[in-house]
């Protein structure tokens, strides 16, 4: 057959078979035992031409309501932000996206340097000593933090706040089960971690205390106090943080975090139906040699020129095999590059300005909802999300909103029975006053 991805001609094939010394390609598969040989053709859809396939897939894509054509107030861990247009231009350079892991540093200096810069930016934002080259996403990064903590402290219990993203908690639980680690949930009170309850639960078997900052409900947790509780019991303090929020919030590294993780999706990464995004993992220096995943380090070549390599590989699975403390191999290098470009474009001033706009616009939305007669459930400090209570089921309201071109907030009733009729509403810097006003008005009309 002829195909644009398959360059061999019949003549090539014949010459190659002659060199191999067989008469047909089939002869190369004769070592597959007869009884397991697949003899037919796959029962999958026939091939389509490029143009026809693009048309079909464009139609499939058009069945989805997207956040570009609609006005989205949906967050809950994945956000619709300003993405500097240069991000996509950089990650579309195929020297980056068609490369493998930089195991040959002499021809991978571009990727290695970009990741070194990413590690620096994440360390800066989180206030931690160092960061790795990325992990799959925020949820698995949190789970990896739990395993690191259990290994480091030789303890088998993790306390995770109820205000951590419910899907992140689920992932932590799955990983913990594999390692026979117990996971207990510290309850929330008024939308933040109940510190008193935490103090009653924590003991000398606790490996880690995990909180989210700002938390799932958008509230700014008192992580300084929670960290002190963790450390008083010699547990590691793990903070899952939105890195954009750290443009304005005091970084976890200054407030006692031993490990800070999260997802860099707010920096230039498409929502993409939940992935690929970009987990990050940052630690204090004392945990450097226990970090999961790849690390890029600076060194010199034989002529003394500065260069970058993958380093401290003795931690990793391909060296340690069954003694490895993490099995991670792939990272999210291309998304780490995307986040780096976005962090660079926003820069020192832009990250702060954008983070501030999120807080202020969310504040505006909060007051607008209250003026319209809604109850805003939690009254603590918030970043870019608030919890609004309606008179009706949120999923029903959202079905009405989409008719008006609005993607409504997350229906908290889906994850907590006590929060039926509560919407988690995200207001980022790209939402305008006019959009917020229209949203509040439509919500008001629909829930009445």
């Amino acid at each position, binding site marked *: *057959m002829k195909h644009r991805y*398959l360059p*061999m001609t019949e003549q090539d094939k014949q010459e190659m078979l002659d060199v191999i010394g*067989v008469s047909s390609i089939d002869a*190369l598969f004769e070592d*597959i*035992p007869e009884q*397991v040989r697949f003899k037919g053709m796959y029962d*999958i*859809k026939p*091939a389509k031409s490029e143009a026809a396939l693009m048309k079909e*897939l*464009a139609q*499939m894509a058009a*069945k*989805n309501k997207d*956040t570009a*054509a609609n006005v989205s107030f949906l967050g*809950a861990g994945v956000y619709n932000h300003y993405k500097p247009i*240069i991000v996509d231009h950089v990650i*579309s350079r195929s020297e*980056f*996206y068609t*490369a*493998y892991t930089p195991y*040959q540093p002499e*021809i991978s200096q*571009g990727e290695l*340097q*970009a*990741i*070194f810069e990413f590690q*620096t930016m994440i360390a800066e934002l989180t206030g931690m000593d*160092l960061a790795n080259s990325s992990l*799959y996403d925020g949820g698995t990064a949190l789970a990896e933090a739990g395993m690191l903590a259990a290994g480091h402290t030789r303890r088998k219990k993790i306390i995770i706040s109820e205000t951590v993203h419910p899907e992140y908690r689920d*992932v932590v*639980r799955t990983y913990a089960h*594999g390692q026979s680690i117990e996971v207990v949930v510290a309850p929330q009170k008024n939308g933040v971690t109940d510190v008193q309850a935490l103090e009653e639960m924590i003991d000398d078997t606790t490996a880690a205390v995990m909180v989210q900052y700002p938390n799932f409900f958008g509230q700014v947790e008192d992580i300084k106090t929670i960290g002190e509780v963790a450390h008083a019991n010699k547990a590691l303090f793990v903070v899952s943080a939105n890195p954009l929020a*750290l443009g304005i919030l*005091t970084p976890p590294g200054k407030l006692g975090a031993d490990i800070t993780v999260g997802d860099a999706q707010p920096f230039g990464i498409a929502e*993409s139906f*939940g992935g690929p995004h970009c987990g990050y993992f940052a630690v204090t220096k004392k945990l450097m040699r226990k970090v999961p995943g790849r690390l890029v380090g*600076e*060194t010199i*070549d034989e002529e003394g*020129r500065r260069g970058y390599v993958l380093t401290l590989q003795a931690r*990793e*699975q391909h060296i340690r095999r069954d003694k*490895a403390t993490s*099995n991670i*191999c792939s990272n999210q*290098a291309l998304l780490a590059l995307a986040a780096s*470009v976005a962090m*660079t474009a*926003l820069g020192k*001033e*832009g990250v702060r300005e954008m983070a501030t706009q999120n807080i*202020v616009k969310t504040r505006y939305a909060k007051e607008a909802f209250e003026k319209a007669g809604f109850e805003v459930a939690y009254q603590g400090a918030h970043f870019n999300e608030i919890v609004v209570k309606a008179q009706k089921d949120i*999923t029903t309201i959202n079905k009405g909103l*989409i008719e008006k071109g609005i993607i409504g907030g997350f229906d908290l009733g889906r994850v907590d029975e006590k929060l039926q009729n509560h919407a988690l509403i995200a207001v980022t810097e790209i939402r305008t006053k006019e959009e917020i006003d229209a949203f509040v008005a439509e919500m008001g009309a629909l829930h009445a």
Partner: protein
Amino acid sequence: MHKDNQPLIFELTKEGRVGYNLEALDVPAYDLADLLPTGYVREEKAALPEVAELDIMRHYTALSRRNHGVDSGFYPLGSCTMKYNPKVNETVARYSGFANVHPLQDESTVQGAMELLYDLQTSLMEITGMDEVTLQPAAGAHGEWTALMMIRAFHEANGEGHRNKVIVPDTAHGTNPASATVAGFETVTVQSDENGLVDIEDLRKVVGEDTAALMLTNPNTLGLFEENIIEMTELIHSVGGKVYYDGANLNAVMSKARPGDMGFDCVHLNLHKTFTGPHGGGGPGSGPVGVKADLIPFLPKPVLVKLDDGTYHFDYNRPQAIGRVKPYYGNFGINVRAYTYIRTMGPDGLKAVTEYAVLNANYMMRRLQEYFDLPFDRHCKHEFVLSGRRQKKLGVRTLDIAKRLLDFGYHPPTTYFPLNVEEALMIEPTETESKETLDAFCDAMIQIAKEAEENPEIVQEAPHTTVVSRLDETRAARTPVLRYQPTEA
């Protein structure tokens, strides 16, 4: 490649420059001190770069020129399947209806995305011969661990939680034993025989009532098809264990042999290998897992299903599920690319992919066998392993050969893996390369073999043409510098 040193982005920074613009605030401003608790307003701004847009583009363009991808040149990195990354995949994944959908939108607003995933699942079931597929795992190792957690849950559900051993061959990918450990198992290694295949007698010795699973890739990492596969899977099943297929090498057997027909109970695939999701410089990947019927109840939740009315739905009502392995539903963007690829190839195309991948590998193996030691002289599948032990005797190590290949504009093969071949060079050409490319690479390898005999210094001191020479990895590990630190003014 561009030889000049490229400064770090932080070294290009000048206070007062910006690379962004935001709309002016259109709501009333607040004093942040009134909105945030005391002590929680960041005092010092994060020291991120301050660079204007053109210089940002020049910086990253310069970095890209210091990087080698498949589009730059041949990349025969064994076990990594560095095939062409189709451009149409990139365009489709950027369609707004795919790139700009939120994972928590109401299902009625994302039916197109769910349809694509469902159709991809269905195609992967057919390709692997499995009864169900989950697209949740983010990459290969994540898929391995997911499948092992399911096997663990299966045994626990049957009152056989004592099964704590996972058997892996000595040729296995490093992630196999690491995934077994993370899933709470102990690893038992089974030796290879003189033909490079799993030693069945050794396997018999290590199986028992504590066997949870055998992890196997077929063809194995030597590129050889495990001919005794039926005997092996039956042996594991006879003691109540499960057999796991590491799909890293699926490019070798599409339309030729399906894991499900070989007796495997579960399989992970690397969509970023066989199905052309680009490698991205190390990720993202996508590592779907397929299972036979008796493991279906343990699939991570949610499970994507098609309802009787033709709509798609995420089913969370899965009481025996191992839980979630990732927030949301997997690396959707990579799954879109893989789906586009499968639809571009169709059944005939995927069959041809495997045939050409195997033809290319055998052709190269035969062209090179005179110049390098070939430890296992039989037809290979999609990749083959040479040994550089002949060159080592001349003082030229496999590492040197790899570095010398850089001077010819090639990414070298995988080196020093698998572990049971001395000075290993593992070569995987893939089907998307032309005969001219394969020949040119073979010519370079043959020239290097001759250089090893006649002029070993040129190999030992390679590379000569790259932007940096060999880097001091010991120094990097001994005194780690993992981030930029501004020099004190």
